[in-house]
């Protein structure tokens, strides 16, 4: 009896070994590089005056209804966070010594977690590296919300036919040759639109020109594998509410794991074969031993 058990274990171990080597023999996936044509935003919080013109312009451009709820009772339009009707918002940062504003919207990551997890690529990278949404491919599983480290995708909880709502960098306006509504309307040019490479150069240029005005790094240059929305600030980015995420893209680990295990579907097939062999052998042994009995 112990023979069949040993065989079983041997078979499984072989399958496991194949699965393991299948994973480790391959080099890890290279980190994704930004598309040279990638577009994005550069937001300079030292320039922002908190006028919320971008919030209003975003509503107009995307046909979103005002949110008359605020921290202090009703106001005409005062959402407290990104939500199913708000794709960008101005928040207040306050370090005690200083205060200012920060704009929040989709970061359009170079290697976005939401795109990596989306089952049917309803969220996908489109021209210019924009993270775009296709409601016809979305089944509403909300894994994107779980995955996004910036809590950006929002869900229409109150709707029977809900969609995911997030900034798509006004891609319909871009197609018409216009710039995004928020950058078009910004009275201080605190948020500007352009190619990511140009914006990055501009950001470093601004830091070099006024080293006293800025912390010497650009948020989004490396964070989470790089984002296409870049931030400049006079205080730490943590004070602006931007999470410390390290330089590795969020989906890097899981994608490597997934690729390692399911590369060419070899490991599952081998494991399946081994299981079948063991089970057929077991059945044969059982039948033999049953026949041997009175």
């Amino acid at each position, binding site marked *: 009896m112990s023979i069949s058990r040993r065989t079983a274990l041997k078979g499984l171990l072989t399958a496991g070994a194949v699965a393991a080597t299948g994973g480790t023999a391959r080099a890890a996936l290279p980190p994704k590089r930004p598309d040279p044509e990638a577009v994005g935003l550069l937001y300079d919080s030292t320039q922002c005056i908190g006028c919320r013109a971008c919030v209003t312009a975003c509503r107009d451009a995307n046909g979103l209804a005002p949110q008359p709820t605020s921290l202090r009772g009703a106001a005409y339009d005062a959402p407290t966070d990104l939500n199913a009707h708000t794709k960008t918002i101005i928040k207040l940062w306050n370090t005690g010594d200083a205060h200012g504003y920060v704009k929040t919207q989709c970061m359009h990551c170079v290697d976005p977690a939401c795109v990596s997890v989306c089952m049917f690529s309803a969220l996908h990278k489109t021209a210019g590296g924009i993270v775009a949404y296709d409601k016809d*491919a979305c089944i509403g599983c909300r894994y994107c919300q779980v995955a996004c480290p910036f809590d950006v995708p*929002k869900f229409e909880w109150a709707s029977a036919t809900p969609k995911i709502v997030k900034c798509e960098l006004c891609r319909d306006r871009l197609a018409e040759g216009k710039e995004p509504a928020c950058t078009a309307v910004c009275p201080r040019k605190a948020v500007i639109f352009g190619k990511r490479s140009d914006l990055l150069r501009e950001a470093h240029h601004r830091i070099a020109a006024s080293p006293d005005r800025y912390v010497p790094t650009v948020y989004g240059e490396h964070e989470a594998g790089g984002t296409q929305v870049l931030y400049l600030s006079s205080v730490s980015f943590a004070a602006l509410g931007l999470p410390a995420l390290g330089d590795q893209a969020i989906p890097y680990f899981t994608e490597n794991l997934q690729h390692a295990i399911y590369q060419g579907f070899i490991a599952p097939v081998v494991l399946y074969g081994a299981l079948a062999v063991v089970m057929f052998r077991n059945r044969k042994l059982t039948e033999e031993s049953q026949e041997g009995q009175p």
Partner: protein
Amino acid sequence: MRAAELNGDARPVGGPIFTAGFNALLAIVGACGLVIVWRLFRGLGAVSAMNDGYPWGIWIAYDVVSGTALACGGYAVALLCYVLNKGQYHSLVRPAVLTSALGYSLAGFAVLLDLGRYWNIWKAPFLLNWNRNSILLEVALCISAYTVVLWIEISPAFIERWRDSTSPLLRGIAERLTPFLNRTLLWFMALGILLPTMHHSSLGALMLIGVSKLHQLWFTPLLPLMFVVSCIAMGYAVVVFEATVSARLFKRPHEHKMLTSLSGVMVGVLTTLVGMRLVDLISRQRIGLAFTPDRYALFFWLEMAAFITPAILLAPKDWRRDPGIQFLSALMMMVAGTLYRFDVFLVGFNPGPQFSYFPSAFETLVTLGLIAVEVAAYLAIVKRFPILSGAPVAAGPPGLVSGLRAAS
């Protein structure tokens, strides 16, 4: 081992289906149905407490993630029975597979309910935009496939019944399927072990995307392995639980010897699991977090206690033989595995201080309703189809769940 012989001595329990207890379950199902209708017309926000920070609530954490783990009886027993060739557990296979088939089907239904745009799912097989990086896609395909496999695995029970049916249609189906099943059942059995291994590891891997959101006590590259091992433990626990309750409920023989040795297996699985958990925390230098006075540490220790206690209770051979301790340990193990999954999906998941989640009453009602469907379907099926082995005990013993039995 032919399909028809899979569990030769299994017999329908018989008796009326619509008992008082069954009707009570149907009442819960009815209430749940109303909530589901409300959800379909008014959206998820109308019935659930889910929000943008906690987009997955108990429908995912319990109905799907814990539910499929609790439905691992079929997987765990099949592993023991067919791969490790422990034939003596054979009589446990059918009830375990039935529980699994019901559990997985309801998990699938819960997913449909939870999906915001469920009507788009029909496109999935036809569209080519499958994202092969998506772990959730793998989980979805795997769970769907496994549900089908489970129903195929349990189909001999139905065929046995239909062979004797008066309906020519059912008899025809049964006669046509028998040779097919005889030829292929083992292949499906093998699939029935491969698929849960794949998707339970992937259910754990789901939360590895929460790099910045999942608490470090739970965020570990070993999550997939932990989920597989813990679902096996839960699978055995459910088998013990279900065998004990069925024996009592239907006045059937208590598979005492088998459950005792199964409990011995559980000690091994639990020790492995707790060992892995601690070694992982120590090697990642995160063990200090378990001693920080916060809710994360509290839930960590609750979870650890729920895993360790049954291992200790079942370790001495004398205790292990006690059906009361077997039952209690099985319960604790089910709780432990469920708590572990709640910790990974809800308690340890922190999207930011502005968000909080506690399941709403309607949400809980839906979960209870799905459990009620499962229990009711189980009761109805074992009464009409050959699932449980052995003849009823002539003289019913006093004791456990007498009330329940009376109700059934």
